[in-house]
């Protein structure tokens, strides 16, 4: 009896919380079907019209996708391509580094690791201009390489993976070594499969980070046809006005991949956060 009561109570609290968190997303998604005039018209008093459009329209989506000057599908494509490429490279290189730090023995390992990890405290804004200069000297300004290459190695990713990798029993690796496997073979055949949840977590974090990246593409990309999603959305606000309809439609479209990722892989994501948090 008491148990059902507490369960009902828990459920109600959870439902209320879910409602609070979903409300702004629902407002955004439903607002994208409103004509511009209506978007803030009912924002004052809470009623059904605050959330649901009175006059439904697809004009915002039409404006978004049929604008030849700022082709939105192009921005989505760019972002997908960059985010996927970065994610693949990041998984590979960061896991190799993490494997070395977690499982191999070499001189100055501890000092190197501490030195490397200490870069976690340097905010991205500090390295903005130096990285820009580097990209310029490589001749990469205004290219996808400037978006991809500097984003591949992530101190946080290495840190996260080192936490996971240290869970794998050393004995297992040593057995493989004795059987004649090279370190890379050990990495490929034993560590990677064992760390699948960690890699999925990292993939989500990296992909989301790229999907949402704003400052870096803003600075290195000037050619609009190469621009990334978030910068494109920001350009719907100018000095004189904000195109709310287009922004809501763009936000809705750009939320879909993220929501999908979350719906299916949320378990790993949460796991990744607790792991790195507790053990860090």
């Amino acid at each position: 009896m008491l148990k059902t009561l507490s369960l009902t109570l828990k459920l109600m609290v959870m439902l209320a919380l879910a409602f609070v968190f979903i409300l702004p997303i629902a407002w955004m998604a439903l607002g994208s079907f409103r004509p511009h005039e209506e978007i803030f018209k009912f924002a004052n008093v809470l009623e059904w019209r605050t959330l649901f459009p009175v006059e439904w329209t697809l004009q915002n989506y039409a404006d978004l996708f049929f604008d030849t000057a700022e082709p939105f599908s192009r921005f989505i494509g760019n972002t997908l391509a960059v985010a996927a490429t970065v994610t693949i490279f990041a998984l590979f290189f960061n896991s190799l580094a993490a494997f070395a730090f977690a499982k191999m023995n070499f001189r100055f390992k501890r000092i190197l690791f501490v030195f490397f990890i200490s870069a976690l405290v340097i905010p991205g804004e500090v390295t903005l201009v130096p990285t820009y200069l580097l990209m310029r000297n490589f001749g990469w300004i205004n290219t996808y390489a400037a978006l991809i290459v500097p984003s591949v190695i992530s101190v946080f990713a290495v840190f996260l993976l080192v936490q996971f990798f240290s869970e794998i029993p050393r004995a297992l690796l040593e057995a493989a070594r004795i059987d004649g496997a090279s370190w890379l073979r050990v990495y490929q055949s034993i560590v990677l499969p064992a760390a699948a949840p960690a890699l999925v977590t990292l993939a989500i974090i990296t992909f989301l980070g790229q999907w949402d990246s704003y400052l870096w593409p803003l600075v290195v990309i000037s050619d609009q046809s190469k621009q990334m999603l978030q910068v494109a959305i920001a350009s719907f606000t100018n000095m004189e006005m904000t195109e709310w309809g287009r922004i809501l439609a763009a936000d809705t479209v750009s939320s879909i991949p993220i929501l999908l990722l979350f719906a299916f892989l949320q378990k790993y994501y949460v796991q990744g956060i607790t792991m790195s948090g507790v053990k860090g």
Partner: protein
Amino acid sequence: MRKSKLVRAMTGLLLALTVLAGCSSGGGGNAETGGSSAGEGGSEKVTIKYWRHDNDVEVDTLKQLIASFQKEHPNITVKMEIIPYADYETKIRTALAGKGAPDVMGIDGPNVAAYAYQDAVIPLDDYFAKDGDLDDIAKPVRDSLTYNDQIWAAPLNDASVAMFYNKKMFESKGVELPSKDPNEAWTWEQVLDAARKINDPGKGVYAIDPAWGVGAGEGSAFVKMPFIWQAGGEILSPDGGTADGYLNSPESKRAIEFFNSLYTEKLAAKELPPEAFETGKLGINVSGPWSIGGYAASHPNFKLGEDWDIAPLWKDAKQVTPNGSWNLAITKQSKHPDEAWLFLNWVTGKEGAKVWYEKTKNLPARLSVADAYPELKEYPMNIFVEQSSSFAHPRPVSPAYPTISKAITDLFEEVVLGGKNIDDSLGKAVETIDKAIEKTK
């Protein structure tokens, strides 16, 4: 030791990617392509890179002007690149620091002095003397772009703001409508009186948004500074050397007090929903010519003359309105300043300025353009034109302007939102500004 297939494949991929990137770059205008500036009429191919912020109508107009320019100068290609307004300065500053600046860049008027002081842009006096018709540019605009006796940018247009009011709201409360004559602006007291009558916060209707809320940003500073000037105060001394004795004068203090009283009386809301004026939740607003076309496009049922009207900006001891808008400047990093000037003059010269006005309907900075169109002498544009020639006050021309602008918006924010003592806040603002000025001496 055998290298794993995966390792080889991935490393190869990354290498290929970097090589590819290396090849595809270098097409930009600023890349070291060699060859010095060819001067006028040179047949050498030159690319001028031009950065500006986003605005659909203005960008379309510029595309048209660039096309006609390239027809006239087949050896010059202009590459316009659009940057989101919100982070325009971030991008420009990173590029300047990283030696990746464009040849021509858009600059908001009051930031011109700072860029000139930092040696980021070049003076245009010689160019203007040759074929720029400098005298045709309205004097307040010219003044706002002059620093150290040199002119550093060419204006695309001017800007001014007026009092926008919800006519139906005034009529339903029986409030007398303000005059449309630019020489008969309402006083602060008249505005206050009308605001008290139309205020209805219970119904979600606020009387007035005196200066675009109390947030940060240049737009916010643009409409707040006039309160100080209207009261008879100033922000800096005439030589620009100090704010002490000016920003903390009794006149300036009175301006802050009046502004704050609108909020303490609950005539103005500390937070308004977006587009409050267009959706009938706000009685009095300030805005500029851009909103006339803007409202017509976004809220076609909210009609000028029926639902709302425009009156000159209010006055106090003096009638003062803000001025200045966006300009074009040539960067010091440009390798082709002569070609860049040809483009600048094409867009902002007498002919270009006419095209600019016809398409964008922005307030002209050139007197010849203001004369060429009868509609500029009629309501509602006559209000802005008359204000900008008779009552305009440039924002302080100082290399410390970015700090000054922030100190002003912070000052209003502290007093209105933070409820801080006005004298203390003024003292703090003066101190911040003077420190910044000291650094640029």
